[in-house]
Structures are given as C-alpha cells and as structure tokens.
C-alpha cells in the first residue's frame, strides 16, 4: 500500500472549502431568520443547525468533487 501524502496546499484547499460551506450555512440561517421573522439571536442559538448544514454542504461538495474527478479520469482514458 502506498503512503498518502496530504500536502499543505491540499489542507489549505479543504479548509477553504469548509470555510465557504460554513459561510453559506450561516447565510442560509440568516435568510431563514428573515423569511420566518425569527429573532436575530438565532444566529448564535442555531449554531448547531449551522454546523450540521456546513458538514452536509461539505459532504455534498466532496461527492461532487469525487464524481468530477472520476469523470475526468474516465474522459482522460478515452
């Protein structure tokens, strides 16, 4: 089995994607607060929802990236 090397650039990229997902999840929370006329302290009180949403978004991104990677590899072989 080969050793996997996670480079600093890869870590930075993943951190950046996670951060983007977190920001998007927060934006969704703000939109929900506005849409459903909820108090603004839900920005903090609903942080659990935001974290879960972040992870879901990150997971979705991961699936899309893997799918894209596989697609590109298959396309390259042909």
């Amino acid at each position, binding site marked *: 089995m080969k050793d996997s090397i996670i480079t600093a650039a890869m870590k930075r990229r993943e951190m950046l994607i996670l951060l983007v997902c977190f920001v998007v999840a927060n934006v969704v929370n703000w939109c929900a607060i506005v849409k459903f006329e909820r108090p603004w302290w*839900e920005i903090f009180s609903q942080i659990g929802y935001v974290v879960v949403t972040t992870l879901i978004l990150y997971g979705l991104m991961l699936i899309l990236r893997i799918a894209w990677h596989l697609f590109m590899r298959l396309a390259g072989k042909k």
Partner: protein
Amino acid sequence: MNRKEFLADCGAKGLAGVALSLFPWLESCTPKAQQEIKGEKARIGIIGTGSRGLFHIKNLLQMPEVEVVALCDDYRPHLEDAAQYFPKAKLYDDYHRLLEDSEVKGVIIATPLYLHGRMTIDALEAGKRVFCEKSMAFTLDEALEVYKCRERVGGVLLIGQQRLFDPKYVKAMQMIHEGKIGKVVGVRNYWYRNNDWRREVPSPELERRINWRLYSEYSRGLMTELACHQLQNGSWAMGMLPEKVMGSGSLIHWNKDGRDVYDTVCAIFTYPNGVNMTFESIISNKHFGMGEQILGSEGTIDLVTAMHYTDEPAPKGSGMHQLVEQIENGLMSNSVFAGTSWATETSALAPGLPIMQNVKVVSGESSVGAEADGSKELIEAFAHAVITGKQPDKVLEESYYATQFALLADKAMKEGAILTLDEKYKIPYEPLK
C-alpha cells in the same frame, strides 16, 4: 385535597393574593380564616344519608373541625349505613325532630330534589346553618321562596355548586376574566352517559322513593341533576346571566321502565350580548363524556380537563427548523392536480397547554360524586360558616340562578317555547368577575 393543598394549588399558579378579591367565597380557605376557627367544632346534622349523603360523610370524616352529631333518613337501611361512621350521632327518621335538636348547628341536606326547598326553609327558620344539595328547589317559585327566607332570617345557606370551589375552575375563570382567550363567544356544555340512571331497588314499592330522579313528580331530570352545575359555569365565565332559553327534551331510549323524565335534552341559553350557551345530555351514549368549554375569540378553555387551547398557531421552531420542514414538505408532499372548493373543518389538533399541574379530571360518569371535584372544599367552607355564622359571599346568588335557569330550560322544553326569566324571579346579582 385539603385547604392547605387547595391554597398551594392556587398559589402555585399565581392565584394566591388576587384570589380573594376575585373569588371572595374562598375566604374560608385562607390561613387567617382557619386560625379563626382553631379548636372549634362545627356540629352538623345530615338529612338524607343515601348515596350523596354518604359521599359527604366520607369527606366529613377527614375534617377535624366537624362533628356529626345527628343523622336523619326515613329509609332505615341508609340511616344504618351512615350510623356506622358516627356511632355517637343521634338518629332520626323525621327531619323536623333533627331540626329541634339544639346541639345541631348546621345541617347538610342531601335528599331528593322535591324536598330541598321545604327542608331548607324549615332548617333556616329553625336557626340552622344550611348546606343543601343542588338544585336549590323544585320550582321557580320555590327557589325564590328559599332565597327570600334566607334573606329574612339571615344565617348561612350554601348550595352544592362545587365547581365554585374547584381550583381548576377558579384558575380557568381567572384566565378567562383576564382575557386570555379573548372575548367569550360561546359556552358549550355536554354530559353524556350510557346507563339507565337507576339505583337498585330491594322491593318494587320502593321504586319511586329510590329512583326518584326518574319521575317528574320528584325530579326535573337531567336539567336539575346535571345541567345545573354546568349552567353556573356559563354565568361565571360570561359575567352575566342568560336572557332567554329554549330547548328540546325527549325520552328516546330508556322509555320502557316507567320513567317520565327526559333521557335526552338539548338547551340553548342566549346572553344579552347574543352569545349562546348550550347544554346537551344524552344518557344512551357516553363517547364524549362530560365537557365544559368556554370558547373565546382567541382561544378555548376546557374546564373539565383544565386545558387551554389557543387559536393562534402553535409556537414554531427556529427559522432553520422551519426552513428544513418546508424543504421536507416540498420534497415529500403529493402533487395536487385538482381539489374541492371547500374542505371540512375538523377540530383543531393542537395539544393545548394545561392551566394547572396535577389536575384530576372528573369523567362525570359517577351519579354520586367524584374525588377532587370541589365537593370537599365546599363542605369545608360550609363547616367554617357553621362555626363563624358568616355567609360566603356571592355563591348563593350563583346557585340561585343556576337552579332558576335549569328549571326554566326544563319548562321551555315542556312548553316548546322560548322563555325569559320573569322579573319577579330576579334577585340582586353581581357577576363573578
């Protein structure tokens, strides 16, 4: 529940303090009032030791301030049943003799309805402090006579309208009067049972004596035995008295045993502001049991279950929670291609909120009485009044009108008419709010 628990129950929900200004008849429950009678005894005689009399006896046994000194019943087996609990009590088969007994300071009358008026008047005139079971009297005139007698001779007269002493009703009425359900727009009462309302009769000649409830010669049936309690709720919640009454009664199911009181009744009481109060009772179907509901423009209070239902949508979750729900509903819902232009409105499924903790719900099935329905507190208030001689405020007027409107509804059913209470039956009345 004893007085202390009653007050704690009320106090826990913020009733203490305001209770006495809004509910002055509960004064006897206060520690100060209890201190007033410390070490004293209410010497009581009981007239009528049948099922309801025995129910009171079981409550009296738990009251250290009460001494039952005399018992009276003209039906020996009932008298002997009661005598087991109070071996030292004097026994009478004629209530006049009991009233002559100077040791007796107060009397509890738990006899058939047609005897209530006469016995109450005799007892008041004999200088006794009186508790009489509801309804107060057998006819409109007799109820007025009883009221005037009490006015004339003074003294104490309480009628068995125990809901006035039930903490959940007290709390509910406080909420209603504070506007928690908005404007009262309807009062709905029903009492369904599925039994023949009969008592076992040891020999046929005792039929009418024991099953007096079933004969119009002695009883006004469902209106005086059941409705009377619930009609009083309406006036309490509305803070006014009904203006007109209409109704219909029939004997549709238990009609082969010789009874002549209705087994199905439905009455509408209209208040001066147009609000209707309904009462329906059927004793051949018990699915819905007993219900007493005050309907407001912003919510509903079910008095029997002590639940508060708001017409406002239930509090929703956070914005994120609602968003997720909306997405879920969007994904899972069926597509609608066409639909009716109307939809049947079913009753709200909102669970509601209890107005008090540890509420004991009374099903209304028992013909004798139920635990924690206010009866014990009422008798305690009577015992206090026997000792102090103080008439609890406002309750007599409430009881009087509850009886009058129950009797008026019965009359309306018999005459098939819309009736109003004649001016001559009106007494000074201050609403309970």
